[in-house]
């Protein structure tokens, strides 16, 4: 009980290949406090915390737990040190009950006395004010109940430090309030709590101190009492960085896609797009900003005919002047109408390409149905593959190499190259430069700008605001499945976009 800092990180650095995910980060977590780790997507928050939970180990620097230097090699080591992390994706077994999930893998009497264990777990949950029925099966639970199970599981294993990764991302405002109440109870009981988040309002409401990360670097820690939404936003987004992406004025923009009041739901029936309306024009790049999971994926997939929509309609205005209703159509039906939609999805190797197939066969994905007759034409795709390799300088031993063996940047060039090759009128791209090095990124910016010049309507989902602000003509912000604003990318500031993404986003959620 003599120690003051539950956790201390000293000069921690973590690299993945050439990418530095965390550089020289030093921060402390006090006993009995709630510390928020604030940062945009890709700022290295989760990587940092994964080093505490034993998923990664740091390349440089040291970690002190309760004043003593510790080496955390595995999740087991992390448990033993009293650290419990609640991930965004819950690790629970649906057919087992909450209590069974909680005691999984723990030592103890061979014979299970479920009644006693249920009581024990129930009592533990009650001390902190959780509402939990330990006998309930996981598959019968809501997302917030599952989260409760994860937290209780960690507490039952004797965790002194709890790390929660974006805990409110999946919760309703009421559930969020309940969670905050129990977190405060836990703090009173002397536990240290770390919350990874990018929601300013929650940070201000809940935490004692805030540590801010930006692009893998540690910016600083401030007492919440001395912070405000604008001061935190400033720390989080930093100065606007000039990227020198050459951007032309849109030439005679033409209406291409119009979405009117579209709502859609995910598999669990949760609304992921709520009454979304917007227009995309040919000859401009429309950027979609928002925190991860705000409905960006569904927005693109509903246009591409891969996501069923509930209300509203999606209209396509062809260059010839005809109008087609895309909503309610499958992707194959859309391509049968000779509407050339190109789509570069977020999951490049799991959706856009087939990792085990070579470049030629991956080119065929789009074109094989065009050739007449029974046989697939491999000559044209092969030619296309060779052209792409040459024009985009794809580093590959040849067009017969499985794309899985290529580096991330080259995979993206292959994918984008194929999509552009179909001469689309609409180009949908999701996170086009994620994980790419600088040179590859500029190749991609250049390709997108070329398409814009050709009069293609480009819709680009991105996470790096600097890029979006310099690449796009207009920016639309999504938060919690709703459109919270659309602005001219040339004039809006980064802070304004940041605020639309987080705070007003939460307000939108509150109404929804």
């Amino acid at each position, binding site marked *: 009980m003599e120690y003051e800092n539950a956790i201390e990180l000293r000069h921690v650095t973590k690299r993945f290949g050439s990418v530095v995910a965390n550089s020289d980060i030093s921060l402390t977590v006090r006993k009995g406090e709630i510390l928020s780790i604030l940062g945009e997507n890709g700022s290295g928050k989760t990587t940092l915390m994964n080093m505490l939970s034993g998923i990664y180990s740091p390349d440089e620097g040291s970690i002190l737990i309760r004043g003593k230097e510790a080496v955390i090699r595995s*999740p*087991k080591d992390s*448990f033993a040190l009293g650290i419990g992390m609640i991930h965004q994706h819950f*690790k*629970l*077994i*649906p*057919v*087992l009950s909450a209590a*069974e999930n909680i*005691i*999984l*893998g*723990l030592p*103890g*009497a*061979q*014979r*299970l006395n*479920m009644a006693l264990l249920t009581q024990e777990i129930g009592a533990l949950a009650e001390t902190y004010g959780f509402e939990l029925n330990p006998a309930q*099966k996981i*598959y019968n639970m809501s997302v917030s109940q599952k989260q409760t199970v994860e937290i209780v599981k960690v507490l039952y294993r004797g965790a002194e430090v709890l790390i929660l990764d974006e805990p409110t991302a999946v919760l309703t405002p009421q559930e969020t309030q309940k969670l905050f109440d129990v977190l405060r109870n836990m703090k009173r009981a002397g536990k240290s709590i770390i919350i990874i988040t990018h929601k300013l309002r929650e940070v201000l409401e809940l935490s004692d101190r805030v540590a801010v990360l930006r692009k893998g670097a540690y910016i600083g820690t401030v007492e919440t009492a001395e912070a405000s939404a604008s001061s935190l936003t400033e720390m989080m987004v930093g100065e606007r960085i000039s990227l020198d992406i050459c951007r032309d004025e849109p030439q005679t923009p033409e209406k291409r896609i119009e979405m009117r009041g579209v709502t859609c739901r995910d598999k669990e029936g949760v609304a992921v797009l709520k009454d979304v309306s917007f227009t995309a024009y040919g000859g401009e790049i429309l950027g979609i900003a928002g925190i991860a999971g705000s409905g960006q994926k569904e927005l693109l997939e509903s246009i591409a005919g891969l996501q069923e929509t509930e209300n509203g309609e999606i209209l396509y205005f062809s260059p010839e002047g005809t109008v087609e209703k895309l909503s309610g159509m499958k992707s194959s039906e859309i391509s049968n109408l000779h509407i050339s939609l190109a789509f570069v999805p977020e999951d490049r190797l799991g959706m856009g390409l087939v990792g085990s197939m070579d470049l030629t066969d991956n080119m065929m994905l789009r074109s094989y149905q065009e050739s007449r007759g029974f046989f697939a034409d491999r000559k044209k795709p092969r030619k296309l593959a060779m052209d792409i390799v040459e024009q985009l300088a794809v580093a590959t031993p040849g067009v017969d190499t499985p794309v899985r063996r290529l580096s991330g940047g080259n995979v993206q060039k292959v994918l984008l190259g194929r999509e552009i090759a179909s001469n689309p009128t609409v180009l949908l791209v999701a996170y086009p430069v994620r994980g790419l090095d600088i040179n590859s990124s500029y190749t991609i910016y250049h390709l997108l700008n070329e398409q814009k010049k050709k009069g293609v309507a480009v819709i680009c989902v991105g996470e790096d605001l600097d890029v979006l602000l310099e690449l796009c003509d207009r920016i639309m912000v999504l938060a919690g499945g709703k459109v919270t604003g659309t602005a001219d990318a040339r004039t809006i500031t980064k802070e304004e976009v940041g605020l639309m993404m987080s705070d007003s986003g939460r307000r939108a959620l509150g109404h929804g």
Partner: protein
Amino acid sequence: MELILIFLQKAIAQGICILFGASGEIITEKSGNLNLGIPGIMYMGGIGGLMGAFFYEQSTAEPVGLVGLLISMLATLLISALGGLIFSFLTVSLRANQNVVGLALTTFGIGFGNFFGGSISKLAGGVGQISVAVTADAYRAKIPGLSQIPVVGDLLFSYGFLTYLSVAIAILLTFLLKRTRKGLNLRAVGESPATADAAGISVAAYKYVSTVAGAAVAGLGGLYFVMEYLGGTWTNNGFGDRGWLAIALVILSIWNPARAIWGSFLFGGLYILYIYLPGLTRATQELCGMLPYVVTIVVLIFTSRRNNLESQPPASLGEAYFREDR
């Protein structure tokens, strides 16, 4: 009345070897291993026990039934566990495909059984048809006293001890799966090996132990067949498709050994129903023979349609788990 009694008795007798096989396969599948080698393993278990008893009875002038029983049982457990070990080694350690290994093991096991069943007497110096009467009698011994009670005795107490052992094992396994920590961990391994691994459970160890133990239990089904059902002898391919029926029974019982007890009697009944149903021609008798399989298919379709999570196969069934793939 008499006929119904005999039918029930025979149905139970038919069901027991299927029950052993199903219990063993359930415990195996609960770890996520789909062992299609079970039919072969049951052949191996059967011939193993027979050989153990045979060599014992050959080696001594006055064989004692109980000794023969113990030796043959030990031989069965060892040989069938070896089958499970081959399966685990290839699928867990060498990461081979489960279906492929299972089918190869069945080819091997059936050949193993028929080969030694057919040549054992020759190998031992030509004693003609093998028979281990003394040991088989020990297996067939009924419960004294109780089996004399009319009707109830015939129905409940007229079997050798393996019958009761099979039911006891099924109940024990159900208890193990549902009421113990190890059972809970095992279910977790079969449902989501990655989650189990993260919780500090050794996935490979659980897969090995449950597969080897499951194979040993299944082997007892073969032992039951040669000792109690055939009376201590061997006929090539006599065991027939009972091994596959055991796998079918796993589905019918929805991965619950206790439910497999009733299921095995039902399957045993369906298996011999054609003999007892009046008015059947030979042709319709054969159609009757497909009943167990048709029933299983219907159950399979029904469970997949119902989408009820509780009655699904273990979620990782048939899939390999390697940590670096996480």
